[in-house]
């Protein structure tokens, strides 16, 4: 059974490109427009992997990670941040919030899939 991935990004094009990349690798994909949308979806079902942007309206990536880590079902779920932010300070804040990894945009599809394989095992 294919792994179920939640992709969170306010950019329509990024969501579409990530979805295309993951579906080509036979992953099941669900999309969310921002942190709040993602949180609602996570409360309704479980996912094997969460890929989230940082800067989003209503709820940003780090707030989403903190909220997800407070849920029992998402305490061990891999959450990788895919963002334009690249400062060490932001990465440390992401790590402190409970992120599994940090990817700086633009992403290469091959690299993204490699990261997912490494994290998902």
């Amino acid at each position, binding site marked *: 059974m294919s792994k179920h991935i939640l992709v969170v990004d306010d950019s329509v*094009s990024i969501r579409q490109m990530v979805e295309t990349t993951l579906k080509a690798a036979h992953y099941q994909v669900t999309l969310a427009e921002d942190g709040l949308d993602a949180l609602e979806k996570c409360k309704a079902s479980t996912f094997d992997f969460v890929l989230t942007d940082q*800067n989003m309206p209503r709820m940003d990536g780090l707030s989403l990670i903190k909220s997800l880590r407070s849920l029992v079902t998402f305490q061990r779920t891999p959450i990788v941040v895919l963002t334009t932010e*690249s400062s060490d300070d932001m990465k440390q804040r992401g790590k402190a919030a409970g992120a599994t990894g940090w990817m700086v945009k*633009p992403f*290469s599809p091959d690299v993204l899939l490699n990261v997912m394989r490494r994290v998902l095992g």
Partner: protein
Amino acid sequence: MAEVARPLKQGESVEYTWVWVSIIVLLVAWGATYTQFPTLAMVAVSLAVGATTVFSVRQSQHDSQKKTEQTNPLPSPSSDEVPPRIRAINSALRELLAECEQNIQAVKSTQDDAVHTLSTSFSALRELVEEQQTLTKSLMTFEGSEQSYAAHLKDFATETDETLMSFIDTTEKVSSSTQSLMTQVEQIYQAMPTVEKALSDIDAISSQTNLLALNAAIEAARAGEAGRGFAVVADEVRALSTRSTEFSGVITQQMSMIGEMITNLEKEARFVASIDLSQVTNKKDHIKGQLGLIAGKASQDLSVTEALSSLNTRFSATVGDAIRGMQFGDINGQNLEHTAGIISMITDQLDTHNISHLETQMEDYKSQLVAKGQLDHNPVSASSMDAGDVELF
């Protein structure tokens, strides 16, 4: 703008030039702060403060001069005292900045639309290519087999060639053997008259034996009682002779049938031997050539299959590059939004008209810039479309 371009009066011109320089330098400082050039920002802010100080000193001198000339104290400064020239500059600047903001929004909107269209097209293209790849694979392979159709065809052509050549060789050998068989049948056929003559001789002997037995029986009868025993012997000899004649008849009949069968066999063998195998022999090379062509085409198809597979890999890599490149929409979009935010903030700041408090306001702006620079930042760091770093915690 026409009002801005109007020449200033002597004296006023020098003072307002310093104000103008301060505003421009301050704008440069804002820009530098948000483009991550802190050194340039600090230099620009220093220049702005310097310009403001010069302006203040000149203003003080001007005021002192006026005090000397007029004994009455000056009224407290108010927004009404802002010279029309400064208000005109302020207004023109705000109009320009508002236009810049609109342009940025228009660029972002167009870019978002274009990237969305491109992204949709590439996604669809990728799906179509994957479908094509699946169809090509099903065309080139057998269900449940990893081996390609071309490889199967090549094997089949090779096996058919071997089988056909073996069959033709066997046929040639059979033809050759039939000639030998026919010779042997002829030899058997030639031996038949000898057997028939021997049987005829047996019949003659049997007939003479029968006649002798008959004579013996007659003589035995003439002898009377003394020849009774001899008569029994004569009868037995006669019976044996009769049986011998019967056996000879059966053998003659069987020999006749064998003779007919040998005749038929000879006829059939002669027919087989007479079949012209030259056509088969001639076609042998042609068929071998055709099978070679099939095997060659199969090898070519194998190469095409491998090339198609390589093409799909290269296509995936190209689409991957396109996906990486198209993320400029998101990256530049965030950059544009951030820049629009800066322009909006500058426009708000330009609402200040009270020139008498300019120095104080400049200091406030400086503090605000420093505070904003510490709290706010440009979320985009990428300056090329090379793939970003990855770090797993």
